[in-house]
Every structure is written in structure tokens, then in C-alpha cells.
């Protein structure tokens, strides 16, 4: 996608993830959910790349496929010069130390029968990087880093609030000193006043440990706040990718324009002055996506060519990529 760059930590090339659909007595494959269908982007060392889109657009699947939690249907995921897709299970397990994930639901992603100390220690035990007293010291340190009182280490997850649980999940993700963290909607299950606390913490940790984030979210305001660059997905494809300020100031793709104009602004004066681009209808099914451009069925400026060929993902301005025939 871009010229070779030493600062690229993660390069995703034409990544595809199709989930087969089986029907009938013989469980024959009758189709596939095209969850991710040819996605390419780079993540630079130390940056936060925001990945936004509506539910079902494949943003979470992209994150999980990068971590090899799913076996990719096609494409490459090159992390620090190594193609993760071709790695054997044991090699991948070792590499996972460097790549961690923070999950959306702080209730479902923590084992209710384990104490906080056990949860945060588990990655270190699994990867045998520390033993006995070292582990305890490290757990206390990690809890302190995420602003939780280490004295609570022997408690169980249900004794904590949503925001505190998300901090436990973050401490666990930091346990193996990763360089790259996939944050999959880390704040969307939290109350508004708690979201800001967690986002501030993520930003502090990034500075402190020189972390690189892939920040997956549907909240465009929060993504704008935390990201350096932003990619917009629709139906398994990246429609636009640009520097944060370029994307929000001058969105080029009609989908990005509609998406941004639909975000409510907490200011009645500014909100009343905005031009709304209302999209008709709903997102089509990823089982049978539209031919050509995925967005054409709802696009206000679609033309004949949009149904015939899939638009290239091209760089129209330095660092500003768009997949649209009309731009």
C-alpha cells in the first residue's frame, strides 16, 4: 500500500476473512459471510490507528484476524517483519506476547471464578515469564499502573464496577509487556463519565510504555480524540483512511460524509447549523454483498461504473486513501 517504511509495526495486506455457511444434512457449504473482504493498512510504531464503522462492518473481525484468533481466508498480517498467517501454532503463541487485546465487555471477558491477582497473573504463568514472588510483585505493579489498589488483588471481578473491571482487563493485557494492543470497543459498555477515565488511562499507558494501538470503535467522537489516523470500514472493506484531522475536516468518501454528519453533537447551536446527509435503507447482508462498490446501494452519488467494478483503494492526497470511483 505504501512504500517500505521502517516505522511500520504492523502491515495488513489484502486480508480476507470469510465464514462459511453450512446447510442441510450433509452440511454442505452453501455460501460465506464476507466479514472482511480485502483490507490493507499499515500501523506505525507508537501511533493509534482508529478503525470505525457500524455494527457488522467487520471491524472486530479484522482485529481478531490480525491476532490470528481466526484463520484468515486470505492475505498477510506482517508484524515486525514476520508474517503471522504463516506461523505455526507454537511460534504464534510466542509471538502473542507482543500482541495483546482489550475486549469490549468487561463483564464477559473476566473469569468470575478467578481473583483479580490470578487473572492478571495468568498470561505470565502461561508464557512462563515469571514465577512465585516475581509474579506477585508484577501483579501489584500492574494494578498500580492502571490505578487500582493492589490491596484488592484477592477480590473477584463481581466486586468491581464496570470501569474498574476494564482496568483489570487492561492490566492483564499489559502483563507480558506487549508492543501492540488491539482495543476492541474498550469503552462502549461503560457510562459516559467513566469512558473519559479509561481513555485517559489508555493514553497515559501509551506514552509510558511506548504502545501501539489499533482502536476499534463505533463512537466517531472518541476515535477522533484518541487516534492519529483513522480508517472507515463498511461491509468488510475500508472506504477511507487518512490522518485524523484530514478525515474529519474533509471527508472524501460519501459514506464517511454521511457517517460524520449523523453523529450527534452535544451542542444545540452547532447541531442545528449542520448539513445532514441522511442515508436511505440499511446495510446489505455480507452473505451476498453488492457487486462493485459495497456502498453503492445506499450511495447518493452512485453511477453505472459503481455496480460494475470495485473501486481501487488509492492515495488521492499524501496519506489520504479513498475507495470510490467518484472521488
Amino acid at each position, binding site marked *: 500500500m505504501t512504500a517500505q517504511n521502517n516505522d511500520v509495526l504492523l502491515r495488513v495486506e489484502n486480508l480476507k476473512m470469510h465464514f462459511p455457511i453450512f446447510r442441510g444434512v450433509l452440511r454442505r457449504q452453501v455460501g460465506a459471510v464476507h466479514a472482511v473482504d480485502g483490507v490493507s493498512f499499515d500501523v506505525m510504531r507508537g501511533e493509534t490507528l482508529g478503525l470505525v464503522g457500524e455494527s457488522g462492518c467487520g471491524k472486530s473481525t479484522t482485529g481478531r484476524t490480525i491476532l490470528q484468533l481466526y484463520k484468515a481466508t486470505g492475505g498477510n498480517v506482517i508484524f515486525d517483519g514476520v508474517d503471522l498467517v504463516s506461523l505455526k501454532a507454537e511460534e504464534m503463541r510466542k509471538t502473542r506476547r507482543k500482541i495483546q487485546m482489550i475486549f469490549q465487555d468487561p463483564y464477559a471477558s473476566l473469569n468470575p471464578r478467578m481473583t483479580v491477582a490470578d487473572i492478571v497473573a495468568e498470561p505470565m504463568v502461561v508464557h512462563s515469564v515469571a514465577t512465585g514472588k516475581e509474579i506477585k510483585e508484577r501483579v501489584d505493579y500492574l494494578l498500580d499502573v492502571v490505578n487500582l489498589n493492589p490491596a484488592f488483588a484477592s477480590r473477584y471481578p463481581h466486586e468491581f464496577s464496570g470501569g474498574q473491571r476494564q482496568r483489570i482487563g487492561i492490566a492483564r493485557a499489559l502483563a507480558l509487556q506487549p508492543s501492540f494492543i488491539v482495543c476492541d470497543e474498550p469503552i462502549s459498555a461503560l457510562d459516559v463519565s467513566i469512558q473519559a477515565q479509561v481513555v485517559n488511562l489508555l493514553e497515559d499507558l501509551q506514552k509510558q510504555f511506548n504502545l501501539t494501538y489499533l482502536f476499534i470503535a463505533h463512537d*466517531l467522537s472518541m476515535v*477522533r*480524540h484518541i487516534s492519529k489516523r483513522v480508517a472507515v470500514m463498511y461491509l468488510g472493506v475500508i472506504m477511507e483512511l487518512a490522518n485524523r484531522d484530514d478525515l*474529519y475536516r474533509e471527508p472524501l468518501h460519501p459514506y464517511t460524509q454521511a457517517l460524520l454528519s449523523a453523529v*450527534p453533537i452535544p*451542542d444545540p447551536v452547532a447541531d442545528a447549523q449542520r448539513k445532514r446527509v*441522511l*442515508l436511505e435503507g440499511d446495510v446489505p447482508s455480507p452473505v451476498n454483498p453488492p457487486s462493485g462498490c459495497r456502498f453503492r446501494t445506499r450511495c447518493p452519488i452512485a453511477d453505472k461504473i459503481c455496480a460494475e467494478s470495485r473501486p481501487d483503494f488509492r492515495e488521492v492526497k499524501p496519506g489520504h486513501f479513498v475507495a470510490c470511483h467518484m472521488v
Partner: protein
Amino acid sequence: MPDLLLDVKGLETQFKTPDGIVHAVNGVSFGLKEGETLGVVGESGCGKSVTMLSVLGLIPSPPGKVTAGEAKFFGQDLLKMSNDEIRHVRGAQISMVFQDPMTSLNPVLTIGRQLEEPLILHIGMTKNQARERAAELLAMVGIPNPKDRLNDYPHQYSGGMRQRVMIAMSLACSPQILIADEPTTALDVTIQAQIMDLVKRLRDELGMAIVWITHDLGVVAGIAQRVLVMYGGFIVEEATVGDLFANPSHPYTIGLLGSLPRIDGKEEGRLYSIDGHPPVLYQKPRSCPFAPRCKWAMEKCWQENPLLTPVSSEHRVACWVDTKTGRAR
């Protein structure tokens, strides 16, 4: 105030749980004028939904119980009505739209059956009349081919369309009040924009009053004329929408607005965050419920709970501190 359509005074609701009594609503008073849109904002557990469910007699009892207050609607107290009486008000004069359109529709009945039910029940239409009106209602909320789609089941509709059906259903009997409880929270932003657009259009056409419950201040800014901010089972601030966003006066409102990044305007650096977390209401708060998280808190805030007091004609705040000067009011 005689021109109030709904006049709620001193409402209190409690829930019995194995861990003790939860004081969900602790004396809430507000009025709803004819044709106005009232936004109710707050975080989960602040009592915003329970307040409205209490007014409609929809609190499951046990464990819930409305322990005090009145809710006057056309001179009658909704809280004193028998189950039968309030059933005639619910769905006919006051109707409600819920957050999750999947769980509030019956999956084994066609959309048509579910739309016709209130028409037959409340208005006494015949089956054929109801069928015709149901198709009209679907057309009104922007569902294409309404006649055919009446025979479909809820799973054949998308999330946004289901919420349109819920709105059609709530409008079936031309209610005076529509209570919308987080109707767009489960939807994507582009679909949310469609639904908000639809509700605004219907409001202007039909002239009903709307109570819109949400946690999203952006949504409130786009749809409401007047706003109640709730915290810990109390109303902490009440103002017109313009005034609330231009002059937020309660520390909680100020904190909420400060913690929201915006997609417009310039980048603001670090987000303002409110420390701590929302209260658990096992006791009825005697002091200000927000005091533990408030950076302005004074001694008085820990001793006495402030009442809603006017700061200007249409702006009321429950706070001992004048947040503009940082001193006591």
C-alpha cells in the same frame, strides 16, 4: 400551572433486593407541557427509566414499589389508578417506545397482528379497519410496501425497521404523550439519524408531547426543547436545551459535557474526567449524592441534600455551590 399535560410531584420508587432496599427514585418532580419534547439524561442507574415506568405503572411489583408522590394527567392521579384504569391510559393516551426493538416485539406474531392489537383493544376498530390503519401507520414511519410487510415476522425486519414498527405501534392510538426510553441506543449512528428525523417529523405533524430518555447528550441537543439531568435518583438540573449547553450549572452536568470529545471544533487535549463512579443507592442519600465525586464540594454538601432551586426563570439547579464563582449560593 394549569397548562401542564403531565404533572409529577415527589415521586419515590424503591426496589427490594436480597442486599437491601435500593432507592432508585428519591423525590422527583417535573412537568410536561403540551407538545413539548423533554429530554431526560443520566447514566445507567440514575433513575431516568424507573421514573417514567413508575408514572405508567409498569414497575414490576414485587420487587419494585412506588412509595410516594403523584402524577396528574388530566386531573387524574396515574399512581392511584387501578390496573384496569391505567391500562386504558397506557398505549392509548400515553405510549412508550423501548430501547431494544427485538425484545419488545413478539417473535411469533406477525407485525400486522401486533400493530392491530392496540387499535382493536383501545379504539374498538373492526379487524378490517385495523388492518388498513396498520398499513397506514407503517407507511407513516417510512416502511416500503407496507401492505405486504404486515404479514412478515419481526426477524424479517432489520433493527432500524423494528424500531420504526415500535414507533408506529406507539402512535397507533394518537397518544398525547410518547415516552421514548433510549429508542436509538441499540442502533447505528446512521440509523439513529433516520429515527430522530422520523420522530421530529411525526412530532410536528401530530403535535404530541415527547419524553426522550437517553444517556447521550448529543441526542438530547438534537431533539429536546427542555432537559432534565438526573443523578442518584434525583433531578440535579433542569433547563431549556440552549441554556443547559450554554450555561451548565450543576457540577455533574459540567463534568459530563467536559468529558465528551466532539467531532467538530478543535482538539482539546486530555479529556476532563469525573473521578469515582456512580452511587449505589442502598440508602436514601441525606447529603448531595454527587458530593463524593465533586471538585467543588463544601462542608454543607456532606450534611444536607440541596433542593432544585431556580437560577433563572426556566433554569433550576440542585447544588449548594455557585459553580461560576466556586462559592456558596
